[in-house]
């Protein structure tokens, strides 16, 4: 398997684990040195935070919607007040580490 988990299955209980996900870039927003990616696979969507140098290193600087990617990183719960009740994975977001 090219992944350890499916995006839509991550929950607060996974917090602190290192996981590898695969899927498609559903959305990208840049916020001064950090990119927020919505990573979509068949199971759902998870929000990924990636610092610019991690994007750069993975050849993902020009990452656009519907690029197919593999991302390894640690699962973190979102900061207080940022939880997204609309997503089953809305309490989580992965920190991106490499491609």
């Amino acid at each position, binding site marked *: *398997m*090219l992944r350890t988990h499916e995006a839509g299955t991550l929950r607060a209980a996974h917090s602190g684990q290192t996981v590898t996900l*695969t899927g498609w870039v559903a959305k990208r927003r840049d916020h001064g040195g950090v990119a927020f990616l919505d990573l979509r*696979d*068949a199971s759902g969507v998870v929000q990924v935070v990636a610092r610019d140098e991690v994007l750069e290193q993975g050849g993902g600087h020009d990452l656009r919607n*519907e*690029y*197919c990617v*593999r991302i390894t990183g640690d699962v973190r719960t979102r900061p207080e007040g940022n939880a997204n009740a609309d997503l089953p994975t809305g309490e989580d977001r992965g920190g991106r580490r490499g491609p």
Partner: protein
Amino acid sequence: MVAAVLEVLNSAAPLPFQIDERVTVGEEARLKYRYLDLRRPAQGAAIRLRSKVNAAARAVLAGHDFVEIETPTLTRSTPEGARDFVVPARLTPGSWYALPQSPQLFKQLLMVAGMERYYQIARCYRDEDFRADRQPEFTQLDIEMSFVEQDDILALGEEIAVALWKLIGVDIPTPLPRLTYAEAMARFGTDKPDTRFGQELVECTAYFADTPFRVFQADYVGAVVMPGGASQPRKTLDAWQEFAKQRGARGLAYVLVQEDGELGGPVAKNLADAERSGLAAHVGATPGDCIFFAAGAAKPSRALLGAVRLEIAKRGGLIAEGSWSHLWVLDAPLFEPAGDAVAAGDVAVGSGAWTAVHHAFTSPKAEFMDTFDTDPGSALAYAYDMVCNGNEIGGGSIRIHRRDIQERVFAVMGLSEAEAREKFHFLLDAFAFGAPPHGGIAFGWDRICALLSGAESIRDVIAFPKSGGGYDPLTGAPAPITAQQRKEAGVDAKPVAAPSA
């Protein structure tokens, strides 16, 4: 029970044959009255088992969140190794649909569509010349997965096989043995070895390196041992020559190991003394055995010995009743010389010297990624076949998901960019939109059902099969159509000439 009331719901006309286990009529009559044939217990049971086979596979796949998806059967003609059945398009006279040889391209498109896990019990169509026990339409369990590697597909394939054989009370030990293609060819002379018995091919090329016997001064010399074969009468040994000639060989050299250990037969006296004295030990023969040899180019020689090996098992009763052998054959070559494909009755795709062994979308193994186009003959593929009792019952591969690699493969096959675009533009276009790494497998459903039923032929596990030549004795298909149908269908429409460049 004791009848209290009896009512005739319907009467029966005189029967064309008796409905019991004894088969007294020819297959043509059985197929013409297949609905009566299926009232016989074994024939009916085979069809019922097939339904259970479908259900068992679906249960395994549902357990892994697979999505069952139907793909079109009226589609575009794409070369896939055999001839297409074509269907006239009434609304655009001169244009034709093709019936799919497999859902290959659609299942790859479904991976681009993000389905991740697809399967279908799919009807496929190939317009081939008559070959033993083939049907023009047949069924595959067709599977494709995204974000997987070869081992993931093999594990799933084994889980399915275990579930199917459990239906007949057989436990298949897993993981299944794995042979490389090269090993299978060297040891068994075939890419679908039957390992229910021994009698493996013995490599003798080095053993005869300095032989005075001209026939054995060859690129390859191999042997296979027939236990107890030394007592075969001359007539039987002559028949083996015929056996070899039917397979395109000049003959079949043999040495008889007499009971006193001396070597007999016409070949023995041509060998050097040292060759004679060590021969039985080298090939593992004991007194009373016959040693068959093939010499020449490795590929045809091994194929001949592989056929001899099977025939030895058949004649000698070497295969234990009710025994099963399941295994994987891995690492098949990516390409074969186009001439070999045509000789095997396939359609070579592209005009190059090389054509794909599996199909054009099979990925080279990682270690051949840089060299497969400069040295096509040595490149191996992420391709795998599941073999059961000497039958290829499933096969698949990890696919190419990158457009640049796909284009290099097409180039080796002699498909120009324009030709590739014309044939596969929809797939190449799709690959431009973040196609995921993917791979799959297809199981030969008719063959698997026949093996599970203990049926001789796949015709026994198909409710309404065709007989030889693709004829259906029940409905009389294929049949002429009326002039009116012909006109409407546009069969005779002259294609509009393509605008010349």
